[in-house]
């Protein structure tokens, strides 16, 4: 997967409302890309629901969160609505998995993104990345750790 210090590949993907979102939209901010296999699977649902609970604290510490999976925009919309999520969800749907591949988190075996976290700093450089072992959910504490440990700008 992509390593800290590398430039984060830019992308432009539709969100749950079909609006295009690019990495460059977050220029000057810290954004955590939350790659996950699929909407509605029990494990992912817990992961995003728990992140949702600490969204105010993450924002207070200067990080925005964006989810990325191969699901389409309509599916993302339903998923967001069903679980009360406000985290934007991007559809890495066509060409399928292109962004996951660019970040080195694609699982060819399963045809979905692996579960991974990538923190991109204000200048577009990867500051931290984490690839989760299969079926393990990275706790939000790991994101807070990365935020605490980064070098102050």
């Amino acid at each position, binding site marked *: 997967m992509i390593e800290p210090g590398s430039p984060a590949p830019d992308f432009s993907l539709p969100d749950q409302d079909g609006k295009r979102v690019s990495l460059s939209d977050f220029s000057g901010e810290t954004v955590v890309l939350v790659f996950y296999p699929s909407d509605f699977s029990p*494990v992912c*649902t*817990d*992961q995003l*629901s*728990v992140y*949702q*609970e*600490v969204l105010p*604290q993450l924002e*207070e*510490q200067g990080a925005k969160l964006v989810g990325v999976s191969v699901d389409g925009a309509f599916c993302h919309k339903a998923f967001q609505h069903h*679980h*009360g*999520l406000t985290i934007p969800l991007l559809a890495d749907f066509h060409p399928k998995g292109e962004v996951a591949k660019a970040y080195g988190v694609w699982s060819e075996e399963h045809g979905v993104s692996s579960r991974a976290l990538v923190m991109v700093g204000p200048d577009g450089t990867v500051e931290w990345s984490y690839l989760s072992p299969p079926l393990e*959910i*990275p*706790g*939000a*504490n*790991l994101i*807070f*750790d990365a*935020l*605490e440990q980064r070098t102050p700008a």
Partner: protein
Amino acid sequence: MTRWSSAPPPEPGPADHTRGEGPVVIEYADLECPYCAKAHLILKELPVTRVFRHFPVTSKHPRARALAAAAEAAGLQGRFWEMHDSLLEDQGHLDDPHLWDRARALDLDLDRFEADRRSPRVKDRIDADFRSGIRAGVATTPTQFVAGEPHPGVPGASFERAVRSGS
């Protein structure tokens, strides 16, 4: 700034809700979560010391915080576990009038229950439990800790092995 970074789950202390005897199991659970209800039915049959901590996930379970607060308010009248069991053993009746019925059934002072469950004291307690869970890496409910090791999900074979080796 309040810290949310990694830290092991705090050792059980006098402020914790604790019951039973045997190896210590620290539970992080959401009282509206059906998997937590299932875990409760398994844990209540095991010879363990249960330490309960709140981990309400409100985006998924809109009543989770109200239920946590109801259990804490009952706890201020000495009936935490009774309310805990009542909620987890019947998750079909979770609205406010149902909570009042449960409080009456436990013979609680209803006015006090109402004031307590909306109090900052109870909110702070739930927030502190939740934050300790986040710092310990809890990312799914229920998550049990045995001897410092997390066991996410409904207790299964690996959990029972850990409990047995700790006894």
